[in-house]
């Protein structure tokens, strides 16, 4: 080994050690990497997968929302599935009516800020279903965020009946 290489060796070693120190440094801050959850398992939760909903009536959306740190807000979106094109996020599949063209489908978009940044929230929201909308297969989309911006979606298939 020539002298120049020997001279360089400590520098190379230092560079390597520096790199490893940087690479192995443990993260000090605790970062939230958990998504919030939407729980529809309670007996009072509504709607559930394949629930029927009567048009011209009111019902209460009811779900248990939770997060490991702090909840943000939730959003409800109801849209038709007459074309069978969009799908729910659920395991169970519901019976679909034949394909049809929408005439006056029910559309609902509603966002709610969850007050007080809680870890648990019992979401309840009254929804009126007009009497003149198209009955049939619908999607009931529930979304929830936490304060870090993590979000969870649940797409529930429901059926609006006459």
């Amino acid at each position: 080994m020539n002298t120049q290489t020997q001279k360089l060796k400590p520098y190379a070693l230092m560079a390597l050690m520096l790199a490893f120190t940087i690479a192995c440094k443990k993260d000090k801050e605790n970062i939230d990497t958990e998504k919030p959850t939407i729980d529809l398992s309670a007996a009072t939760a509504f709607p559930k997968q394949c629930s029927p909903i009567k048009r011209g009536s009111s019902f209460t959306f009811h779900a248990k929302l939770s997060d490991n740190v702090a909840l943000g807000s939730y959003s409800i979106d109801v849209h038709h599935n007459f074309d069978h094109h969009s799908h729910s996020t659920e395991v169970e599949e519901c019976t679909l009516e034949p394909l049809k063209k929408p005439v006056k489908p029910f559309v609902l978009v509603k966002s709610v800020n969850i007050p007080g940044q809680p870890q648990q929230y019992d979401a309840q929201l009254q929804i009126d279903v007009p009497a003149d909308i198209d009955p049939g297969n619908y999607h009931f989309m529930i979304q929830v965020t936490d304060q870090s911006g993590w979000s969870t979606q649940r797409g529930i298939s429901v059926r609006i009946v006459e």
Partner: protein
Amino acid sequence: MNRRTVFTLLLTYSMLHSAFAQEKAVKNIGLREVYVEGKRYKHAAEGVLSVDVLSSDSIQKYQAGSLMQTLSRLPGVNAIGIGASQSKPQIRGLGFNRVATVENGIKHEGQQWGLDHGLEIDQYSIGTAEIIKGAGSFMYGSDAIGGVIRLSPPAELQGNGLKGIVNLLTKSNNATYGGSLQLQGRKGNWVFGGGVTHLDYADYRVPTDTVYVYNYAVRLKDRQVRNTAGRETSFQLRGGYNSERFSSIVYLSNYHTRIGFFANAHGLEPRGVNTALYDQSDRDILYPSQQVNHFKLINRNYIVQGNHKIWVDLGYQRNYRQEFNNYTAHGYMPPVYPQDMNTPIHLERRYDKEIVNITLKDQFTLGNHRLTVGGNAEYQHNKIAGWSFLIPSYKQQALGAFIHDQYPINDQTMLYGALRYDYSHIHTSPYQDWFASMLENNQSVHVVRADELRRSFNSLVWSLGVTRQIGSWETKLNVGKSFRVPIAQELAANGVNYHYFSYEKGNASLSPEQSYQADFSLARRSRNIYLAFTPFFNYFANYIYLNPTSGYDQYYGAGNQIFEYAESKVRRYGAELKMEYRPLTHWKVELLGEYVRSEQLSGSKKGYTLPFSPAPSLLVDLSWFPKNSTHFQEPYISLDCKWTTGQDHIVPPEEKTAGYQVFNFRAGTQLTWGKSALQLRLQVQNMFNTKYMDHTSFYRLISLPEQGRNIVLSVGIPFGKENPS
């Protein structure tokens, strides 16, 4: 292409006289396939940065589904894959508009911001690919903040003649059939060349029967990712005059692709599809799909005048991109697509972008100083159409001027310095929804999605570096400041991306990204070993980032989660390691490692990483080069094993990704018969059909595994001849 045609072609060309033998002398399969070449850049500004060079031979040898997937074998280079055949470049964890791709001296401009927009370049047309890691802002301006991918056509012939190569290829995983013809010729000082490539492939296969989008189980027929088939056709032509003192070459090319997207989830939204229709053929392209055409006309010139070498590059590009989908009424969109719409019912989005560039450069020496003074001007016009809105139409002008100096202190030490000034102006057009939304107080309003916006940006960046040869060690250090001008989407987006349940809001007050970086390189080359270690450190004073907030917007965002463009301080560091070792004449061991870590230091995502952070990986390759024999020239057999660790550093809406290990096998030889030669290459990618997910893949979010086992077979048939000059 049926089997008989293939064989006929094979026979025809194998009869032709071959010029392959002459190439052999220069080609040195093995040690120099992937290398950081010090001497190559001795007189160039990038000499102070870490540059990887890949020849067309290596691109062929390692060829994956798309150019960036091929290049991603290099440490520090990753691909944001969109299925099996499209990908976006990523260097040291930065991608999208933070990496500039430069072809024939002109920056390639498409819609780089799009998650599912691949790089519109034919990998079979490339002669040399150079990857400049570290900021290349001082050379290429905005967008080169994370690095540069520089592509050049094959080197012109030195002697008179006409020669070329026909490549036929097939891939088992997605039943790809393809071919490419590359041709080049020279008569005196007149040179010309060209190529044509066509690829046709079916839906690709993954090692799973079922994909779970949330809890919704999507069954895959024959383990094929529904509707990911595609076709790609491209051609290149070039010609002109070339001598030592003067050169003027015109490059004309067109790239066209049509490719389907996974039908059950394009983004995060699960979609039920008519499986009878979608599964009747694995080669048809239904909805959703994209069609892209990229046209380029470039003229590169240089003239040597005494001490000066003056370059003038002119470029015109048109990127025409259409995204097709079934009309789905989301939010307040009318349930039935109105008949009086001018936009076709299946046209979700269209982007039509025209770009004109001019680059001037004068290289000269002044005493011991090697100076380069230059400037460039660019004009972009982006027009939008379709029933879905994400970014507005815009016009953009940019001007830049730079000076670069290279000064040798002694035989071993070289100093580099650069200064660059940029000015740019963007003018975005207003956009109003074609349908009415319900706003506060039950008002029904056609929402104004984008206001007219005019912004101007100025940036002054610099770079200082030194290279020093210490014995057999080559050391490099470069520090500098670089910038990136915010793009139209970051300034003026105001649309709902239903595929991601996101309402994306631009921020008109963003300033250009400022980044400071230090790049080191330590390399040693000896008789049988090559070693390179390239650590880097980078600090962004204001990294522009699409931040998912905790809010929903009931009115303008149709109930979707608000994603806002915001700025945060970011620290990034990492390193690449590369080693090639020849313990014996016919054996080579290669070690390629990469590590990058990013952390946001401010803003609402303080402590989080950046999106699409590649996981650390280590690739070990063992190659055997058996002795040449009469009929088998330059044979090789190699086995790659790549370990990738899990990625736990994530940011919403990402998921943690588990580590994995993938094996690739390669073999090839030149089959010679008298004066004819055939280049045969075989690859078995993902040998054990491992089910794994790539953290930087577009389909990662819906937990779609990467492509399963893929056997790639290609036959190169050289023809023509070149007279020694």
